[in-house]
């Protein structure tokens, strides 16, 4: 069955100058002008079940409660007729990191970006919330600090799951998933899983955009998830243009098992700060 496009005109009527940014059959995103909030992002979507509506509500509540400069401000969230919803949030003027991956090959630059991302995520990690999808497409580069978007599959540890899943792996983007996400070991999906994903991002920045688990980099394996599963990254095969401290940081973040990574997020923060401090 082909899904019909969401009807948005009635909702967009409340805004000035809407410009289509992107989306698909289930969600459309616009930039627009709001009479009170100025330039905003308007997300109009369709939910297919109460569970999905609850998941979207949770994401909005999380972002509202975070009130952090690293995440878009949430102005409103409303259910609309015909199983639709509308989110109005701060417009972020920037591009996703995936368009800037080659711009951070200097370790200091890469680590400063990483430091921002860790500081931003720590607001959620403190509340035992895991993003689970910290890929470059969800990191926006702006003129000020980076912004993290799309907490759609964030997981609150200890909270009961909204979905009953028997999938071989849990919700994630496989190329940016930790081994425990790929094997769906839910008990161990915590801030260390996000740390692993940020390790992939750091490796990718240091390699000028190449994925550290890419078979081309590793010189073995059939695909990236397979290499992630086996802990095979360019550790031995690729020369990273960074000093030992940065390489050790990367190695710890990419530990195959969660216990091999930084145990507490502030240990990760401290380690990054210490290395960045040494560059000055």
């Amino acid at each position, binding site marked *: 069955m082909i899904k019909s496009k969401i009807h948005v005109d009635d909702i967009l009527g409340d805004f000035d100058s809407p410009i289509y940014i992107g989306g698909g059959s289930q969600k459309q995103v616009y930039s627009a002008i709001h009479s009170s909030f100025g330039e905003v992002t308007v997300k109009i979507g369709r939910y297919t079940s109460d569970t999905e509506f609850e998941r979207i509500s949770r994401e909005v509540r999380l972002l509202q409660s975070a009130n952090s400069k690293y995440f878009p401000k949430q102005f409103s969230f409303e259910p609309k007729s015909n199983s639709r919803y509308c989110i109005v949030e701060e417009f972020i003027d920037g591009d996703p990191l995936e368009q800037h991956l080659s711009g951070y090959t200097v370790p200091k630059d890469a680590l400063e970006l990483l430091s921002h991302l860790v500081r931003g995520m720590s607001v959620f990690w403190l509340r035992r919330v895991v993003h689970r999808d910290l890929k470059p497409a969800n990191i926006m580069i702006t003129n000020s600090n980076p912004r993290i978007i799309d907490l759609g599959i964030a997981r609150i540890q200890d909270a009961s799951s909204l979905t009953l899943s028997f999938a071989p792996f849990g919700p994630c983007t496989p190329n940016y998933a930790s081994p*425990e996400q790929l094997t769906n070991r839910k*008990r*161990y999906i915590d801030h260390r899983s996000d740390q692993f994903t940020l390790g992939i991002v750091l490796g990718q920045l240091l390699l000028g955009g190449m994925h550290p688990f890419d078979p081309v980099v590793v010189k073995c394996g059939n695909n990236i998830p397979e290499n992630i599963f086996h802990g095979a990254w360019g550790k031995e095969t690729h020369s990273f243009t960074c000093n030992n401290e940065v390489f050790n940081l990367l190695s710890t973040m990419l530990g195959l*098992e969660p*216990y*091999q990574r*930084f*145990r507490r997020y502030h240990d990760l923060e401290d380690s990054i700060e210490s290395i960045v401090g040494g560059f000055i």
Partner: protein
Amino acid sequence: MTKLLHQLGHRYQWSLTSIKEDSAGDGVIVGPRYMEPSKVADIPYSVRSRSIFDPQFFLPNTAAGKLREYSFFPDILSDGFSTSEWSIDSASECADRCLEFQLSMDFEAVVIPTRFYEGMPSNFITNQERQFVHPFLSSVERLGVDTAVYLQLILTDQMLKDRPYRTEILNWITSFPELSGVYLIVHAHNRTKQNADIDLLIGLLSFISAALKRVGMCIVIGYTNTESLLLLCAEPDAVTMGSYENLRMFSLRAFENQDGSTPRGPNPRIYIPRLLDWVEYQYIGAIARVVSDLDDYIGNDTYRVRMFQSSYNWHFTKPEPYKHYFKSFSDQFYRLHSSSSDTLVDRVLAECRQAHNDFEMLREAGIVFPSGSGGEHVANWITAINLWRQEEDL
């Protein structure tokens, strides 16, 4: 620097006087099985503040000995513990009372208790979390505990030898940012007097070094015999020494027994530091005939002098052999630790090789040691250290 703690049990006063009079040991692990609350409070603050309390919930449905005097012990609190009836309220009350007691005694850290599970049960983590870990962590938050928090673990030899199981445990315990460390007890199924299981020792060394030390968790290993010296290689935060054998080798027997009876009467034995082993006292004369200077082997403290008087009546309930052990073992421990020659691992290996050679020499001289006190473990220790070292690339 690794600390040496006394594992307290029956005759705990021997340990306390040993700390006071001989400066043997850095603190204690208090065991309520043999010690009522008022006696815990009697331990000098200077010792308590360097010590921890082991709640000994190993068998929560059996309040053996003095355990029945602790209102937070599960069997006492719920008037007959059963897993199915252990409610959230009971667990919370237990946690609050147990932590409040530990805090009131000014211990160096508070310990979240554990219960004992045989083998490698698949529900080990789930059960530990439900019964004690989560209620205690909630209580830590509720009470605003700012003292270090240790999680107690009893791992069987099977758990430690099985790499995937060990990994699961490591992933689990490192998932709690609230924890500062682990108080680990090893339960070996068919143990000899000395821990000589090579795979178990490698597993234990790996557990300490590759994991916990690397991620900054403290680790205290309880109920250790002379393998405390071997464990020094991985530099845990503390290891232990104890008087009777049941304090140097974890066993449930003392916790199954409700009547508080004393241990069985073993042959009196004496610790010989140079041999890294306990030897039955009748062998002292034989060893003295073969070696040129017995002091090199046994040391020359006041207890040794007292024991070697002809009028001394050897008996396993007399304090001298144990106080001698505390003194000579702690001297050996601190000497190994503080020396700056070679690496710590090399120093421990050298100590083992010397013991191995000395046993060979004694055997060649005609001494036949009974099984269990002939240094059979030393070769296994050397092997375990060598293999672990290779695995760790040290």
